[in-house]
């Protein structure tokens, strides 16, 4: 299996350093592409960087060579050179000499080391900058999950025009918080724009309740508002698996909207109401459609 010339031998013995660098690079690249969490993306970037550093250093290895620092016998100021009087500036007596080709083979190339030395320090500085940006994003949006941030940005852009609030519900598909927010807006007109719900678990808990509730209540046809239709359209548009509970949530909020007029105590936020109904619904009829973690 490991005889000369076989591909296994080639890959795992002779060129193991390249294999390791490729694997590390791919781990970093995949993390940068696929992860939603910005911090995880940064970790991927650091792994990617490590792969490049490993590549440079492993290319710079030279068999039978030592580190690129002169040995004492070649040192311009070493014991060999300074036996005359120890005065460094005097070069008439000894002076450093140009190494001949045979001796050059004894030292590895300093250039890859220099490049990686600066790359590491600059990498630390840029990583710090990236972390600062992440902090700022977290302060602004309350999350560092990329899809949630995108949903919030979309919601903000649409939310600037009051006439299109309903549409913003449609367009912001992945986030339940988005659909819940505008729904609560018209009824709780006294409270200016309820805070964005921050944690996804909460929205998910909210999401479960309406599904069960809608089912238990005999799936009463929701008033043919644009919102309901819109929430349905989000099911098709949403890309992730928790899409179903989410759309149901938006549906329920629309449906529940007329009710709170009668019950003002349930007004404060849609969230509280939803959680309470969630408890009720789960108690009455536990469904397999539990929130995904």
């Amino acid at each position, binding site marked *: 299996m490991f005889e000369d010339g076989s591909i296994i031998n080639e890959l795992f013995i002779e060129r193991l350093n390249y294999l390791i660098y490729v694997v590390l690079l791919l781990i970093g690249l995949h993390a940068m592409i696929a992860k939603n969490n910005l911090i995880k993306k940064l970790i991927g970037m650091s792994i990617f960087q490590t792969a490049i550093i490993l590549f440079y250093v492993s290319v710079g290895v030279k068999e039978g060579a030592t580190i690129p620092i002169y040995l004492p016998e070649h040192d311009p100021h070493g014991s060999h050179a300074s036996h005359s009087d120890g005065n460094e500036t005097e*070069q008439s007596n000894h002076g450093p000499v140009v190494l001949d080709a045979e001796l050059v083979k004894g030292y590895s190339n300093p250039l890859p080391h220099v490049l990686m030395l600066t790359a590491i320090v*600059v990498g630390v500085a*840029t990583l710090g900058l990236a972390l600062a940006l992440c902090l700022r994003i977290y302060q602004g949006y309350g999350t560092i999950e990329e899809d949630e941030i995108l949903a919030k940005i979309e919601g903000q852009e649409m939310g600037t025009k009051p006439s299109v609030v309903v549409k913003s519900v449609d367009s912001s598909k992945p986030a339940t918080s988005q659909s819940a927010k505008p729904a609560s807006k018209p009824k709780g007109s006294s409270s200016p724009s309820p805070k964005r719900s921050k944690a996804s678990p909460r929205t998910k808990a909210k999401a479960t309740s309406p599904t069960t509730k809608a089912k238990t209540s005999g799936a009463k046809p929701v008033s043919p508002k644009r919102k309901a239709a819109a929430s349905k359209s989000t099911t098709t548009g949403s890309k992730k698996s928790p899409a179903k509970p989410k759309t149901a949530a938006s549906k329920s909020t629309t449906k529940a909207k007329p009710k709170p007029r009668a019950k003002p105590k349930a007004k404060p936020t849609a969230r509280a109401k939803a959680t309470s109904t969630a408890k009720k619904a789960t108690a009455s009829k536990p469904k397999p459609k539990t929130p995904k973690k």
Partner: protein
Amino acid sequence: MKKLSLIPVLLVGALLIYAAEDFPEWGSPSAPASASPLSSHFISNTGVDTEVPNMVTAVLADYRGFDTMFETVVVFIAGMAVLAILKNSSGPNSKKKIFHIETEPDIIVTNTVRLLIPVIQIFAFYVLAHGHVSPGGGFQGGVVMGASFIMIALSWDLDTALARFPVERCTVVAGLGIILYGGIGLLSMFLGGEFLDYAELANIFPVSREMARYHAMLGVEIGVGLTVTAIMFSLYANLSTEGRLKGGL
């Protein structure tokens, strides 16, 4: 999405593995990185040109001095950008998470650190100043020095460290490092050479042209060390407190 992203990743991986076929073998002396004329020039001539035994330092600060100067500028700009981004940035989500640490710093930790800090700082100076003849230099010494301040902040609290090295002073010191580096370059330019051509400094200092390069490299490394020290600590102070520079870890 995750499945989809695997496609380009694996494609890149396949290409890289395919290309690895043409890469030089491990440790081969005939590899381009080892057999290039540039490499042999550095190895054979560094001693004559600069009298610096550590070729890495010579290449870093002299042959590639221009590159290193702007690497330092990149570090400086990154530090300034972090300051600018996090300054007055306490958003609605950050206000409720101000940590107030009431407990006294642990006596064992602080006394151990009290003993360690001088050693660390002297070692940082050694790494910086001895970078010509042993592994080391401005970047390494600066990082060790910055770590000593971070250690103060970790074992007491950030206010204690900031009392010794305020962030305003960090900015000044980091700028001084750049000015020192660029100043040495400009000085050699005014003396008739090119930018960062340290050999011209022999005109005003009583040393040979080679030793002028040797000593100018030390000055340049000190500049790098100042910048890196200040930026490392300023990065820590800003990131650990979200730019408030009080409380935090």
